[in-house]
């Protein structure tokens, strides 16, 4: 069979993969009002009340300090761990303690790091896992 004859079959297969993935993503999307930080549930207001504020770029980004958040939620020997920030849409990024020292969590539950590319801005964070 000529290669270009296979193209319509590949195209249908691709549409099928895209459609099934879309259904899966829609069905598994998490909706929650709390954040699971180091194994415990908190509301964003609770986290803001117990953690030091932090701002970047002349207050363009403001929120709470991620390193202080981990200390306040009971992480010991923080430099020995990695931290995975997971969004409601499944997007996740793992960062080091050094990165956490340059990171903040906004009121909209989004991470911002002054030392990392924008790809590390996880939106609508639902879990911060300590590894």
């Amino acid at each position, binding site marked *: 069979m000529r290669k270009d004859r296979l*193209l319509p079959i*590949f195209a249908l297969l691709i*549409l099928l993969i*895209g459609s099934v*993935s879309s259904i899966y993503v829609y069905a598994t999307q998490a909706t929650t009002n709390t954040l699971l930080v180091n194994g415990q549930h908190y509301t964003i207001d609770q986290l803001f009340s117990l953690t030091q504020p932090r701002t970047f770029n002349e207050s363009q980004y403001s929120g709470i300090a991620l390193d202080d958040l981990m200390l306040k939620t009971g992480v010991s020997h923080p430099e020995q761990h990695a931290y995975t920030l997971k969004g409601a849409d499944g*997007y996740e*990024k793992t960062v080091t303690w050094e990165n956490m020292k340059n990171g903040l969590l906004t009121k909209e539950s989004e991470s911002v790091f002054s*030392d990392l590319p924008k790809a590390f801005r996880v939106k609508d964070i639902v879990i911060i896992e300590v590894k």
Partner: protein
Amino acid sequence: MKNMKFIVGIIVFGSLWGFAECIIGSFLRDVNLPAGAIMTGIFAIGLMTLSRTTFRQPGMQAGIGLVAGALRLFNPFGGCFICSAIAIMAEGLLFDLIWTGFSLGLKKPQTLTIQASLGICSAYIVYVGGYIVTQILTPVFSSAGFYLENLIVFIPQILASGLLAALIGVVTVPAVFILKNLDISIKDRVYYPVTIGVSAICWIIVITNTILIMWS
């Protein structure tokens, strides 16, 4: 002379793509539209299909991606610009590999089914491939490092987001073939002034836009 025409072709197509990414892509992101899929489905696939069907030279689209990605680096606004630049370069390379892999005989007319299928396959693979490459390379070049599990859990979302690009590609590729049938061509006499002029305008607008945003 033919080589010169080919190189200038890479520069003009790459500049147009990079310009579109920087100016139109940034606008789409600002109004919360799925800029990545729209830019890939329309501009990336459109310009690369046009260049491929015009010059019929493997390797050209990888070069176009490099030029467009380089121009994106001059516009550090609107989302993750390093990720965008990496994705653009990867998209050019992937397009080249797909079209070379299928070794399509572009000298004879393609049926509408083949054109539409080519649009779906090219747009989807280019978009998803570019997305995956940038998800790997951006952390690799950062201080956080790359974690495979971060990518694996996000694969369904990446595969799902490519669907829009594929649906746009269904229209874009046949539209380019229709455009080609109109047999519009630039006369040799004005080829270099026009292509170099267009490329220069793209770069000047993007760099000026960057300077203006930084000053304001």
